[in-house]
């Protein structure tokens, strides 16, 4: 056995860190090797002396402080944590309320005329989308406006004299009336 290996094993033995199997093998080795046994004794006594020197003056037998102190500190800590959670919740609710109010009344508390204007804008956008669809080869209402180019805009209107006839979704619709 190498000196370093033996030394490491002997230190582990002195510190009580060997598994039972290894310890048994090592004991058998030490019985047969007196020099190693002597070294083992020196290391064991060194560790024992160090253990004695390191031991405190009855530190482990002194009375424990009451657990109430820990409980009290924990209670305070929990209250603080709860207050913090509560403040976060309140902040979230306040933020939600603010966003809700702004989106509901944002800039014009009356709301009514604003909604109508939005609807008109939406319709115009739809017409423009139809025109774009037409350019791409898809059918759209704008395609059937007499006298207008395929680049129809939001100002496109169907005349009330004409009637749109669309028999089947797979066929192109056509206008009836005096064209």
């Amino acid at each position: 056995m190498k000196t370093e290996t033996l030394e490491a094993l002997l230190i582990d033995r002195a510190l009580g860190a060997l598994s039972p199997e290894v310890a048994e093998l090592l004991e058998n080795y030490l019985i047969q090797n007196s020099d190693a046994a002597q070294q083992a004794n020196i290391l064991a006594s060194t560790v024992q002396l160090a253990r004695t020197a390191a031991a405190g003056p009855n530190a482990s037998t002194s009375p424990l402080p009451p657990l109430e102190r820990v409980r009290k500190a924990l209670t305070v800590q929990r209250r603080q944590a709860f207050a913090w959670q509560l403040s976060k919740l309140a902040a979230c609710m306040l933020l939600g309320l603010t966003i809700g109010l702004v989106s509901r009344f944002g800039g014009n508390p009356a709301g009514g005329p604003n909604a109508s204007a939005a609807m008109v804008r939406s319709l115009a956008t739809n017409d423009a989308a139809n025109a774009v669809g037409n350019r791409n080869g898809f059918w759209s209402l704008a395609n059937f406006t007499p006298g207008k180019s395929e680049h129809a805009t939001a100002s496109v209107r169907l005349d009330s004299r004409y009637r749109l006839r669309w028999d089947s979704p797979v066929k192109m619709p056509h206008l009836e009336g005096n064209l």
Partner: protein
Amino acid sequence: MDDHDSLEQLYCEAAPALLAYFRHQPALAGAAEDLLQDTFVRALKHRYRLDTAVSRRAYLFGIARHVGLDALRRVKPDGETAELQSIPEARPDERLESMHVAIAGLPPLHRETLLLKLQQDLSYEEIAEVLDIPVGTVRSRLHHAILRLRQVLNPPITYEN
């Protein structure tokens, strides 16, 4: 088991060793009870980690170590933090006195590791968890420390195999 019983049991199991750990350190001995309380409060703040720790004892010692280091930093902002572990006052016995001096002369990290083993009887794995280092490093530090102590107290011996 409810929270109250669990806390009570944990305190009974771990508090004596933790209190001794603080009292073994002259710089912290005076505030040992407060530091013990801080350790438990800090540990219970992250209850899940404590409950799922491989070794609750090692986990608590790890927290105690940090609590001690924080306390030392408050006392000595520029002080050497590795001086956390110290040995009790010298004894009249000559050999014991020599050992005391030899332990005090060890490199701080080796001394801390050795005292965790000798004073708290933690396993290598537990010490590794407390110090947040690999088990191999713990073993290496302990071996160096013991060999150094042997060298100081005993003349070198050569093997014949």
